[in-house]
């Protein structure tokens, strides 16, 4: 009986969210070029890393202490960074624009859709996009010979987990923003994360005090997780990274859904 109600609740929720996704698909169809061009960007980056920086740097220390080529080291970090950027931009700039300027959600909420439907739909759409880009990125990595292990398949769900973690926190942040100037702060926060999360070189390059600080960076956990998967250095320590990201997703999600409810239905 209870299970029946639960299933009914989930399916109605799901169908509500799917209609929000349908709207985003319609918009994407109108701007297909923008969507498709997103697949080209990682190719440029991976190429520059491979023929450019890779040849300047040579080999670096991998997660297991052994040497790996620089390109195989940096490529998974770029995948993680693009998962972070995609989720954060979508949830901050995207949501802020739709909520404050487009008044899009006001129109949606005048229909049987609920704020939960809207939030789930937007997160779902952001994740579908993230999935598409992550798959494309992995394909390029495989073609360029930058993937060392079949565990790499799990890098795609790992990127999705990152999307949930950063998307939820981004959405929570977006509900506190009042103007476009506040969005500059988002950029200001993302850049150091991008540069100092063991993205472009191993942790041992940093002084010891900075190494500790780096471990607080949420991107660091995403990078470390995805890098270990594509390089095939698997160990129980990876679960720690997973737990960190999952905790971000849960806390961000709770704050975001409370704040959204208050703001959308005053």
């Amino acid at each position, binding site marked *: 009986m209870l299970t029946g109600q639960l299933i009914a609740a989930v399916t109605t929720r799901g169908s509500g969210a799917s209609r929000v996704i349908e*709207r985003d698909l*319609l918009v994407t169809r*109108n701007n297909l070029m923008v969507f498709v061009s997103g697949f080209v960007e990682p190719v440029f980056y991976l190429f520059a890393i491979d023929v450019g920086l890779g040849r300047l740097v040579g080999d670096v220390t991998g997660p297991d202490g052994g040497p790996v080529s620089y390109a195989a080291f940096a490529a998974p970090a770029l995948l993680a960074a693009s998962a972070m950027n995609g989720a954060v931009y979508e949830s901050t700039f995207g949501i802020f624009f739709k909520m404050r300027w487009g008044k899009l959600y006001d*129109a949606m909420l*005048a*229909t*049987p859709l609920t704020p939960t439907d809207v939030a789930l739909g937007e997160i779902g759409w952001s994740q579908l996009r993230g999935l598409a880009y992550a798959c494309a990125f992995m394909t390029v990595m495989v073609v360029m010979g930058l993937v060392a292990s079949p565990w790499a398949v799990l890098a795609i769900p790992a990127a999705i987990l990152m999307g949930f973690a950063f998307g939820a926190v981004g959405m929570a942040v977006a509900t506190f923003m009042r103007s476009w100037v506040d969005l500059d702060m988002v950029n200001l926060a993302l850049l150091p994360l991008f540069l100092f999360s063991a993205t472009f070189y191993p942790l041992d390059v940093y002084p010891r005090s900075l190494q500790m600080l780096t471990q607080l960076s949420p991107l660091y956990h995403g990078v470390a997780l995805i890098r270990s998967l594509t390089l095939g250095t698997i160990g129980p320590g990876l679960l720690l990274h997973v737990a960190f990201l999952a905790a971000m997703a849960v806390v961000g999600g709770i704050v975001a859904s409370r704040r959204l409810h208050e703001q959308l239905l*005053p």
Partner: protein
Amino acid sequence: MVARGLTKRFGELTAVDAIDFDVHTGEVFGFLGPNGAGKTSTMRMIGAVSPLTGGTLQVLDRDPATDGAEIRARLGVVPQENTVDEELSVTDNLYIYGRYFGMPRAQVRRRIPELLEFAQLTDRADDKVTVLSGGMKRRLVIARALINTPSMVLLDEPTTGLDPQARHLVWDRLHELTRQGVTLLLTTHYMDEAEQLCDRLVVMSDATIVAEGSPRELIATYAGREVLEVRFPPGHRYAGWTGLDGIGSRREVLADRVIIYGDDAEQLTSAVTHSGVEVASMLVRRASLEDVFLRLTGRRLIE
């Protein structure tokens, strides 16, 4: 629809203060009042997108607190601002809105041409909404509100900002809806709009209802039959004079003129002529909702 003691507070501010009203199926019911009187807050509560602070509300025999989605499924909403989806075409705006209601795709597609026809937007079907004029956008929003064949449509200032032609076109479309038996709830601060459309209306001022009835009843009760508007020569202002006291049943002193209410305009005119007050012009007209509005909410506007 039944509201009893309906109240909405935002922190310290009371936007709607314990109002009572009933709306009957198939009628056109209006909320008339100046900006900030609480009309939009009332509409949002009826539309089940804003929780009540106090009182009870039944919309389409349901409680918005528990059956919000079910109520919204049977409502059409025309918000004060045009909340069109600027990234989509006219057709896609209608299509996706139908999908928000969970309507099957084929059913939405069948409905779109009828609605485009209704809104006279058939030749703009594939245009982006960003290039539409204000009147066209408004018609699109009204058509959009009808996609789910609602039993009741909420219109928040449906014609504010439109030119006279566009307003008449919207009124015409709304009359057509009432002929189909749809209940309409609208807010407005245009008297002519309220007189044109409403079967019954309430006048709101300062978060409360100050009068209720049909336009005709309201005029009879609060304004009388006829009105004499008296204007004075340049430089003369009536404020503080007493020369017109006692003429007609009531007088309203405005910044530029005095409005005298009574049942017989000829009698009023001759009384003014004999009063000795120097007058630039006099105009006789039938009492209108504007007079009701000024009487009930007007003093505040002059101050």
